[in-house]
């Protein structure tokens, strides 16, 4: 740690000025990134009447009420959305992992006779694609319209993730695989008992990427799903936040009280729903950060 030594230039006016500016600037950047989220949280427990009249930067809750959360948790569409999203995340990610592991295993083999054609087969898809409309028509013709498998099968493998995982598999020492091979282990056994246990970090990264991807997916659902009972959470969020759909608010009013009250609490409901739908990932990402970071790094190595 050379930086610990006091160098003569360390306390020069230019240096002190730069440091002061830098720390201040970074603090401001961090505050600006944080504030929208902080604002939503504060607003979600504030009294809606005071909030509407309030001018300026909100830095503490105005009054305190949990009424919005009560209404949110009674809202059947939020519950339906949560349930569907969890189904899509779990099933989708499981399929993703199996497919990606199998594909990455093949790509990581060094002595395949058909390695080059396989790589070309994959690389072409990274440069050319059918585009939105032909893909949509294909998905419809496969019977995926208004089918919950539409949320799972069309995204079964992300090519980029497969390539990242292959890079991870390639870092397993060849000697270990060869030793197992000489011991008479089958290729399946080598994959399950040698390669996978030694590739836990890259598996974690890819698992997280897929999970977050499914959690956030909305476009596919908007385009392909028709039944409200099949909608993931994000679609209900879009109705509420983007389309300000009256139906949703009206539906929740039956559970929550008079129409007037709903009107008054409609904004509050938005804030609370944002918190309820985002809280899980906000609570876990700081702990998983290092895995995400590693994924970005591994991904940047190749290409």
């Amino acid at each position, binding site marked *: 740690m*050379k*930086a610990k030594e006091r*160098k003569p*230039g360390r306390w020069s006016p230019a*240096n002190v000025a*730069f440091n002061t500016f*830098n*720390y201040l*600037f*970074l*603090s401001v950047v*961090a505050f600006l*990134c*944080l504030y*929208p*989220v902080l*604002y*939503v949280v504060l607003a979600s427990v504030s009294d809606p009447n005071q909030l509407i009249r309030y001018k300026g*930067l909100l830095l503490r809750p105005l009054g305190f009420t949990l009424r919005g959360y009560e209404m949110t948790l009674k809202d059947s569409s939020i519950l339906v959305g949560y349930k569907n999203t969890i189904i899509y995340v779990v099933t989708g990610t499981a399929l993703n992992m199996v497919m990606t592991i199998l594909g990455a*295993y*093949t790509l990581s*083999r*060094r*002595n*395949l*006779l*058909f390695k080059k054609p396989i790589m070309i*087969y994959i690389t072409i898809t990274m*440069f050319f*694609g*059918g*585009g*939105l*409309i*032909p*893909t*949509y*028509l*294909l998905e419809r013709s*496969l019977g995926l319209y208004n089918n919950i498998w539409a949320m799972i099968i069309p995204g079964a493998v992300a*090519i980029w993730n*497969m390539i990242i995982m292959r890079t991870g598999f390639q870092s397993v020492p060849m000697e270990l695989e060869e030793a197992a091979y000489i011991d008479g282990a089958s290729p*399946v056994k080598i*994959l399950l008992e040698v390669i996978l246990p030694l590739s836990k970090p890259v598996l974690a990264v890819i698992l997280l990427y897929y999970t977050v991807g499914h959690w*956030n997916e*909305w*476009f596919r659902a908007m385009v392909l799903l028709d039944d409200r009972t099949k909608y993931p959470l994000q679609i209900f*969020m*879009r109705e509420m*936040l*983007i389309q300000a759909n009256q139906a949703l608010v009206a539906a929740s009013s039956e559970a929550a009280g008079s129409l007037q009250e709903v009107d008054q609490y409609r904004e509050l409901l*938005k*804030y609370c729903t*944002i918190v309820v739908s985002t809280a899980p990932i906000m609570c876990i*990402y700081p702990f998983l950060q290092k895995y995400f*970071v590693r994924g*970005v*790094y591994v991904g*940047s190595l190749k*290409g």
Partner: protein
Amino acid sequence: MKKEASVGKYTQPFSKRLKKDLRRNWFAYLAFVPVFTYIFVFKYIPMYGVLIAFKDYKPFLGFAKSKWVGLENFRSFFGSPYFLRTIKNTLMQNLWHLFLGFPAPIILALLLNEVRKNGFKRVVQTITYMPHFISLVVAMGIVRLLIDSGGVITQMVDMVTGTQHSSLLNYASMYRPIYTLSGVWQGVGWGTIIYLSAMASVDPTLYEAAEIDGAGRGAKMWYITIPTILPTIMILLIRELGGMMDSGYQKSILLYSPVNYRVSDTLGTFVYRRGLVEGSFGFSSAVGLVTSLVNLVLLVAANRVSKKLTETSLF
């Protein structure tokens, strides 16, 4: 070892090599079957399906029975007022991004790299990563709340301009700043990761040598740090340029409205609206095809320029 194998390989007839390969690697090929099938169905069949751009596609007739119309769909796109509007909006949206959104994480990473207190650094990183983890729908929902009439950002704009505004999305001139800056908010912290990891690879003795030569912080940044991350910057820039023609349409759909189509309607959103909302599949496939061709040209061109100027290239 690799060399030895390849020498032996070519002395044997192909059938014998194939037999040996299948005996040794049968599982590797079997394992590839699901991915092969998936890619064939979901990537290659739509590539063939692009041919509907040359057809007058009628859903009830299907792909095979719909009439061929040659370049009719392309002609009607190039002849429509939407052609210039969507091209211009796509380019403007990307220029805004290239001048504000793209450099922002580079600058933040350079400043974070100068922080010696690791605790402070980590806190700033964790906080700035946060918006990346908010789903696009919710993030745009939050943006809409902040720029609604009476929202925090609208209040600030009111203060600066001295007039009351309704939702800022109702003003066409505000759309591009909102689109770009909300992108900076979501992406600036996450974007630093790749640059910080590139900066971590700098040999510390380089900085020490520079200090002995009397280099200040600015000089070290300019002559050591930036050249080190230049290849990373170029790679990301090439990728950015190669995808710019249909970038961000999902976000646009969440943010735009007929009030601001004049500035917000891009190639990607136009394809979506014409195709999936209005059902003109042939026409919108043609627009989509033009988009991907321009993307490909941009990608190759950017790659070539970067190869010449900085000796960095994607392929």
